[in-house]
């Protein structure tokens, strides 16, 4: 029995969005780990937030200064800023101009 065109299309799409995506994620995740390990070996530290994630963290800290988790958030924010200033090669896509503009938040 031959499969209909629609069945072939559904099967191909299923393979694409499930094993295809899973394989792509696995490869990306493994490459990401390799890059992190290489950076850690070379400079002993890596930045922990992307530009967008760090910006959101800063906004959240400013909006919720008295939140019970705010001290930890400030600590994480400042740690990332200090790391970005220290290292030569950031893990995330930071430009020198973006790093230059960053300021730590008073803890």
């Amino acid at each position: 029995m031959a499969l209909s065109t629609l069945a072939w299309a559904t099967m191909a799409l299923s393979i694409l969005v499930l094993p295809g995506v899973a394989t792509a994620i696995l490869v990306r995740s493994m490459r990401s780990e390799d890059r992190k390990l290489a950076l850690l070996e070379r400079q002993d530290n890596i930045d922990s937030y992307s530009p967008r994630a760090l910006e959101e963290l800063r906004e959240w800290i400013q909006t919720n200064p008295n939140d019970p988790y705010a001290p930890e958030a400030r600590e994480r924010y400042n740690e990332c800023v200090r790391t970005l200033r220290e290292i030569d090669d950031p893990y995330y896509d930071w430009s020198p101009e973006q790093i230059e503009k960053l300021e730590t938040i008073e803890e």
Partner: protein
Amino acid sequence: MGESEARTAREEWGSRFGFLMALVGAMVGAGNIWRMPFTTGQNGGGAFLVAYVLLLYLVAVPGLMAETMIGRYTNNGVIGAFNQVLGSKRARGLGLVVLLVNVALMSYYSPIIGWALYYAGHSLLGTFTQAGFQPQAFWNGFIGNTALVVGMHTLTMAGLAGVLVFGIRRGIERVVKWMIPLLVFALVAVAIRGITLPGGMEGLAFVFTPDWGYLTRGSMWIAALSQALFSTGLGWGIALTYGSYLGRYDDVPLGGGLFTAIGNTSIGLLAVFATFPVVFAFGLEPTAGSNLLFISLAEVFPELPGGAAWAAVFFVSFFFATFTSGLGITEVGVTTVSEETRLSRTGSVLAVCGAIWLFGLPSAYSSSFLGQMDFIFGSFGLPLATLSIIALVAWKFGPERARVIDLNRNAGVYVGRWWNPVIKYVIPTVMVFILGYGIVTNIGTDNQTLTIVGVALMAVLVVASVAVMSVVGDAPGDRPGAASKGGD
């Protein structure tokens, strides 16, 4: 290393690959192999897959991100995580609920792993290709032999304990790093063999020919939702526990969320390719569930050229799928017990595995009891556990706080604000709906008594767990200098 030193250093995964294989292996179980193909075929084939994938991305992926994140953030097992976020002794009761549901789940899952082990062993011995082999008589002879089933249950728990006693890196990780890739290769090999059988393509036509009319049926969406939630293991405490062993530079959303949910479902899809062509090529009943595996497939493999080898590949891979789930479910208890008591890792493994073995004896003794346990804990226990864990992130920790402080930290993929309403409203609503739907649809049926027992049991479980945890003494983690850490 001295005892006090050993209890203060928490173990971490040795590699990214090990963590991903462990988490996906824990979520891939018997249900992926015997339930996913049948559910897909019964609910409109391709239409079901469309609905399923949609719900997988909408509910399961964000939910798993939340569960893994809270594990990494707290660096604790289920009770410790609830205690740390909610900050009260009574709150540990909800963690205890998750723990007890896991122990109950494992008590009837262990005999099923024992069945898989028995069939894997016999497939290696070539039993299924011997002259005069009768699959139904073989199954009846096995399941009717209480000593044998209890023996396999015992062997299963001993095997799990033998792996878990070595900890996360040297135990679980070392095993799953080869079991899961072998499972995938085995399913691919069986699938290729099945598709090339005369009539094998009919099985694929049954599964993949979409009947779009099903998209308007509520029952299909319920089936897709149940499969998306329960086959991914969301909210069982496994992702939380495994996530608690991640290092500070590890990503959560890409691996803990996306890969776990999609990788798990991909193996379910491989199971569709591996079983349905064979089922249709040999004219078997596709709705036979566990019987399909243990009776029908055992019957057809000998009829294939090189059938003994194909049977071995299939049944050994099925055993791997169930065994790696057993590791994940049992580790939830082991991590928690080693953190919340003075027991060492070895002591915790023996205590948890011993308790599961003991509570599993009735399920090993009686398949009927096993079915009742599956109904009660599958229908009410697991949704309750999921609701507890998601509620912890959604309503106490807060999704926005979780997202900006921890989820996007060292993340391989950025998670936007869309995540917040999904965690806060969508998943809890879905879980309450599933619980309610399960109750309403079973009232007035043969399952009415079991439904009432199940609901009552869950209510007692919550009240008793909260009461017990509010009166027992402080956990070792609460006392200065005595931080018990599970994976040592």
